[in-house]
């Protein structure tokens, strides 16, 4: 009896502390500096750990930290097919032509550009999380102790805190939007809806210990526009709504997600599609066009890659979003993997274990760049426009640009690409006009 009462007291105290120190300031948009202090301690600890690891390693590796992993592990010969085969001075077939295809094939087997994007990025230096411990072995007792303390801090203190915050955030989002949704349409409703969305986003970001730096805020998406960003995880949406209000686009889900969707759509004109509607591309485009045409509606948020990529590169942008018209506001999101891996590997983890992993990382640190708005030019088609936007985002975020489709995560590559290679080779063989 007494135990239950004591537990109840502790629980009440806990909730009061959380509310006072975190929820209320975030609702008002001010910061008490607690997370900054936490980040500072974290950075210092990780730097210390890196130095210990470097000392512990027997051979000197000063160049390891500078080599960007984007270079890859093998030397690739990028000479195009024509030059390579041309070097043999004859355009007719030779047995040695096979070497070109053979080597390209083996290079792809050893290390290819695409499949590595669907798994988490490897870190250059250990960040004291077991899950990123790829190559690092036991170095010293002190390091292990620090790691142990880290485990305790993360699981026993941070995790419950974050789960509490997330629960508060989601509940207030549902309750808040339902309440606001009852009001008649008008400017009061819109204002209140913005307040509710922003507050809940801020609470949820605190729930992830997120530190987000926004750059170029003057380019923030305006009403009646379309915001496109690279996709790394479901958290991307929360990261962006922390700084502005958007109309989300997506499929209607069941469960908790469905409840959230139904509640929020009353307050703010999000665009939720039924599963059957998603298959009909014209219907989708029509609804989005209507939304964009109404200049008083919030900007739409779209992730044109269509799937989560591991934040080292930007893959093909599907042209559908770029056919709607209107102004495109590109946004580049780059996470810092040192503090926590935000990538959702949906083939490996389901959403719950993903959220658990996120909540037991150190923090989510990311940079968000708002890029100047872009409009489709007369002479370019949707695909070229999509590529142009993709390049801009990749360049800003320091990501590699890949022409491959993110759908290759699950599907096989189309035969048309193989046929293109075959066509190029054939052109070379008969180039002289003389064959045989």
């Amino acid at each position, binding site marked *: 009896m007494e135990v239950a009462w004591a537990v109840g007291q502790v629980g009440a105290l806990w909730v009061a502390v959380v509310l006072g120190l975190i929820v209320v300031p975030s609702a008002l948009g001010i910061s008490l500096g607690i997370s900054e202090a936490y980040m500072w301690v974290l950075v210092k600890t990780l730097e210390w750990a890196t130095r210990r690891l470097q000392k512990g390693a027997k051979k000197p590796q000063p160049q390891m930290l500078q080599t960007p992993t984007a270079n890859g592990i093998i030397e690739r010969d990028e000479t195009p097919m024509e030059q390579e085969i041309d070097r043999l001075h004859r355009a007719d077939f030779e*047995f040695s032509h*096979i070497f070109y295809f053979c080597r390209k*094939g083996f290079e792809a087997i*050893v290390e290819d550009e695409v499949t590595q994007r669907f798994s988490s990025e490897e870190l250059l230096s250990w960040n004291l999380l077991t899950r990123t411990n790829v190559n690092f072995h036991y170095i010293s007792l002190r390091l292990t102790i620090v790691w142990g303390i880290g485990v305790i801090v993360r699981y026993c203190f941070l995790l419950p805190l974050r789960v509490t915050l997330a629960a508060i955030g989601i509940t207030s989002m549902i309750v808040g939007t339902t309440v606001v949704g009852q009001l008649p349409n008008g400017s009061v409703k819109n204002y209140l809806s913005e307040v509710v969305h922003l507050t809940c986003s801020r609470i949820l970001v605190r729930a992830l210990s997120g530190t987000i730096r926004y750059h170029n805020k003057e380019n923030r998406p305006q009403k009646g526009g379309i915001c496109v960003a690279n996709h790394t995880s479901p958290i991307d949406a929360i990261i962006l709504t922390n700084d502005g209000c958007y109309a989300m686009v997506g499929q209607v889900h069941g469960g908790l997600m469905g409840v959230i969707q139904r509640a929020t759509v009353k307050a703010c004109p999000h665009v939720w599609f039924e599963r059957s509607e998603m298959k009909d591309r014209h219907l989708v485009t029509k609804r989005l066009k209507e939304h964009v045409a109404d200049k008083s509606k919030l900007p739409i948020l779209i992730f044109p890659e269509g799937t989560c990529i591991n934040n080292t590169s930007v893959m093909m942008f599907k042209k559908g979003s770029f056919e709607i018209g209107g102004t495109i506001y590109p946004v580049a999101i780059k996470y810092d993997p040192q503090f926590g891996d935000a990538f959702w590997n949906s083939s490996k983890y389901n959403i719950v274990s993903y959220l658990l992993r996120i909540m037991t990382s150190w923090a989510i640190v990311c940079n968000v760049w708002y890029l100047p708005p872009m409009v489709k030019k007369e002479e370019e088609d949707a695909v070229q426009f999509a590529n142009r936007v993709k390049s801009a985002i990749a360049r800003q975020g320091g990501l590699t640009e890949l022409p491959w489709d993110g759908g290759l995560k699950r599907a096989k590559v189309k035969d048309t690409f*193989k046929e293109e290679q075959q066509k190029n080779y054939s052109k070379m063989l*008969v180039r002289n006009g003389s064959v*045989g």
Partner: protein
Amino acid sequence: GLLSREDFQRIPELAINPLGDRIINAFFPEGEDQVNFRGFMRTLAHFRPIEDNEKSKDQNGPEPLNSRSNKLHFAFRLYDLDKDDKISRDELLQVLRMMVGVNISDEQLGSIADRTIQEADQDGDSAISFAEFVKVLEKVDVEQKMSIRFLH
């Protein structure tokens, strides 16, 4: 710890390679559908660059997998579909067909194949043996073309 053909097919850059299927086939020993890590490494070892200091040591031991001769043998096996140690006109035609797709007619392809065999064939059996294959490629820098270098 075993790889199947589907695992290789999942690599997009390999799947679009016209000779992708032949390359994948090279990993799997006769009649088997799975390859373990050892077998995988054995095949990849053909692409190790040849180092100068290796030439002098171990003259009596078995030839290393990445010697010039073994690299050439590997390429020979890519052509030799039925593994009878000869590249016949049919086999050459089939490999050529893989490389050019549908873009060249049968007659043109046939004459390319005939010309190639004619130039390389020395003993007049209308097929290329390994020795004739080596002779044709004696001027080609096989080491450079069939090697993959690892960075640092």
